């Protein structure tokens, strides 16, 4: 059992016309192509831009890996993706980054079943790993947890 890298990478070219209407082209490339600004991605992007009056706004390469074996999710009171644990981190640039964990395990909740239990070993491991390795969308390092709250699925709010 292992993660299998898909044989091809997906290349997306994002265009916008002078009215702001967007369009996307889709190609497949060898999975060794990892730089959107070089190699086949750049050549195809330049070729498409040469034919178009639209502006090429960005070049994106998507790479995929798939787990090669059947998995066994477990049951619990919040074992659905509509249940979320929103864990908010502070970043070094002063912004906030919220990690939205779907289907949280109930063992990470405090006694109120709403707040996250920051003393739980699994939560400590998740928080420590996040701070050490994960960035905000702007690339800022994360410095600490601000709060963690279980979000109730919207359709259940008026029960």
């Amino acid at each position, binding site marked *: 059992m292992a*993660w299998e*890298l898909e044989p*091809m990478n997906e290349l997306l070219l994002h*265009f916008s*016309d*002078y*009215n702001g209407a967007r*369009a996307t*082209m889709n*190609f*497949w*490339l*060898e999975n060794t*192509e990892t730089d*959107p600004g070089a190699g*086949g991605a750049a*050549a*195809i992007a*330049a*070729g498409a*831009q*040469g*034919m*178009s*009056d*639209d502006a*090429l*706004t*960005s070049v*994106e390469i998507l*790479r*995929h*890996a*798939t787990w090669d074996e059947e998995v*066994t*999710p*477990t*049951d619990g009171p919040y*074992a659905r*993706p509509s249940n979320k*644990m929103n864990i908010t981190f502070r970043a070094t640039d002063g912004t906030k980054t919220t*990690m*939205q*964990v*779907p*289907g*949280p*395990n109930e063992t*990470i909740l405090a006694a109120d079943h709403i707040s996250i239990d920051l003393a739980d070993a*699994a*939560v400590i*491991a*998740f928080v420590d*790993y*996040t701070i050490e*390795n*994960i*960035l905000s*969308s702007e*690339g800022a390092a994360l410095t600490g947890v601000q709060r963690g709250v279980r979000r109730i699925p919207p359709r259940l709010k008026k029960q």
Partner: protein
Amino acid sequence: MAGTTRVTVEILFLYTLHGKFTFFVSSDVVSPTDPIILGYITVLEAITRGKAIHIEISLSQATISSATSGATYISEDKAFMRFRDEFGVGHNYKVPGPKTTVFLTNHEDVDTSLAAVIAFNAAVNTYAKGRGGNDITTFIKGYRKENRKMLKGGRAT
């Protein structure tokens, strides 16, 4: 390249519903099986009831360019470019907002002698593949295709 790599992990839950978890890592990470990503999935699976089944990473680069103001053809208009792979399977690519010069004087068929068209076809034939890895080998034909939405019921309101 962007300063970060966006990672989206698809998670399977017991009742066959899929959830997604998205995060950002350094742009040095260019493989979905990078140890940083797999390590994060391990600690993530310890706090959720689901199991990760798919990883997608996005490597993106913004480009600086401007659309031609008042151009005849816009994003809804396409130069429909048809190719064939090494096994004879067809692959179509739709170039949005084609330049008027790309077409012959009938305004319909792509001018295959134009340098820009030759460059595009060469790039596709050299680098593009089918999803399973088939080589795209041959340009077949190109023509203009309108993709504009019809007016509802043809009524002027």
